[in-house]
């Protein structure tokens, strides 16, 4: 059975060949412990990691390679940023489309009485979806919720359940004017949409290595602006100042206790190189084409509803009246078609989009999907409809 992979928002597959080769080379040839020894294997591993820092810094227009801090994944990076920067009494604004990786740590801090937060709406149901693209309206909604103790705006660039994305440039400029920290979850946009930390006034950006950046699972990263150094989330070995009881002050080591996943970082480094050879405009156009193709086909089926169809991009979510999303996912899985169903760890987003019980069926595209993949999915859904009669 041929597999059709349409779950790139969870993790991209396949990876470019250069990524597999880079991981293999690392494991086989130079997988010493980076930043610990000074023998050739350790130095070679450290060299690859620094190369990746430099590439990521260039890619996101960060001030220097030292501003790149590797983490286990984007969730870890977000937790580090949120818990390491916010202080007792702070007030925070998050969007109504946040992933649980933002909402849960914020909610935890609020439940513990350390901070307070409000949610700013980016859209009011499908009928108002066009407004999500109106930066002025979104900034006005943020402004209406500002308090004297508001310290940060935290939001995802692109939702993980649809292709709506927030206007980072305008929100960043707003935060800059109001002296607010601007922290961005780029889990779904890194590698899909252009991001310029400096032009967008982003203080902290978090992303996984294994989604749009085309690395393998095992590492994520935070890109820090020059005015923030979050407190540590965990402490441990850092490879230097080891007689001190406290973690060192210097970035990136301050945020990188323990051994880094060199093979995953080597893969990410190759992924960034691949993206540097790829025009992001072409990637976005390709994903929009696939979105449009699927949307047109689903619209032709009775009882199917696509969420925010006017927001074309890498992710499309739909539901079918009368059939729970997980049953559709199960049917498709038997046909070798990989999609993700349910609530996608995005309680706020599902509430905002008013999905039915059981959530929705998410189809997420990547660079290597082809129109035929959409047609096979559509064919399978039509078969399912026939079999139900």
């Amino acid at each position, binding site marked *: 059975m041929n597999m059709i992979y349409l779950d790139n928002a969870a993790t991209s597959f396949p990876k470019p060949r250069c990524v597999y080769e880079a991981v293999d080379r690392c494991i086989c040839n130079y997988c010493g412990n*980076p*930043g*610990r*020894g*000074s023998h050739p294997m350790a*130095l070679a591993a*450290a*060299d690859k990691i*620094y190369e990746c*820092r430099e590439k990521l810094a260039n890619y996101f227009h960060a001030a*220097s*390679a*030292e501003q790149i801090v590797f983490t286990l994944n984007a969730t870890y990076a977000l937790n580090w940023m949120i818990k390491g920067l916010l202080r007792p009494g702070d007030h925070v604004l998050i969007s109504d489309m946040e992933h649980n990786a933002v909402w849960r740590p914020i909610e935890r801090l609020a439940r513990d009485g350390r901070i307070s937060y409000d949610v700013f709406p980016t859209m009011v149901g499908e009928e108002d979806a066009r407004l999500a693209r109106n930066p002025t309206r979104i900034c006005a909604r943020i402004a209406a919720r500002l308090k004297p103790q508001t310290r940060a705006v935290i939001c995802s660039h692109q939702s993980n359940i649809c292709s709506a994305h927030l206007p980072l440039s305008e929100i960043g400029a707003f935060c800059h004017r109001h002296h607010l920290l601007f922290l961005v979850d780029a889990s779904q946009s890194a590698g899909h949409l252009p991001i310029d930390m400096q032009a967008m006034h982003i203080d902290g950006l978090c992303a996984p290595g294994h989604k749009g950046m085309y690395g393998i699972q095992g590492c994520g990263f935070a890109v820090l602006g020059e005015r923030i150094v979050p407190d540590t989330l965990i402490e441990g070995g*850092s*490879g*230097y*100042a*080891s*007689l*001190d009881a406290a973690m*060192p002050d*210097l*970035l*990136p*080591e301050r945020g990188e206790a323990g051994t880094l996943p060199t093979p995953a970082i080597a893969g990410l480094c190759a992924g960034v190189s691949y993206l540097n050879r790829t025009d992001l405009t072409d990637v976005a156009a390709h994903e929009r084409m696939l979105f449009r193709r699927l949307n047109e086909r689903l619209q032709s089926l009775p009882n199917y509803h696509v969420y925010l169809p006017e927001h074309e991009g890498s992710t499309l979510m739909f539901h079918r009246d009368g059939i729970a999303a997980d049953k559709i996912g199960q049917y498709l899985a038997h046909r070798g078609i990989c999609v993700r169903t349910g609530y996608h760890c995005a309680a706020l987003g599902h509430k905002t989009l008013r999905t039915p019980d059981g959530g929705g069926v998410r189809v997420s595209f990547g660079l290597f999907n082809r129109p035929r993949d959409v047609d096979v999915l559509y064919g399978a859904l039509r078969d399912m409809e026939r079999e139900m009669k």
Partner: protein
Amino acid sequence: MRSNKQTSNGGILVAVVGSMTAAQRAQRALLSAAIRADIVKSDSESGRGCSYGVAFPASQQNNVRTILSATHINVRRYSQDAWSIL
């Protein structure tokens, strides 16, 4: 024991900078000015435990000081190195 290969002008110095990442930045800054620099462990020089530095020909000391200062790399100390081979 490793031999100390003396350069033509006074041997080898180490700029002790602290972390591996700081040493990598220093190394790249020096290499871009065509100054050979190797990353070495300098634990015994730091006073704070594990540490890294860059070893370079002592003949380049003035240039190295200028370059590392210009690139805002905090050098904790410069020390003679009888062990590095450049």
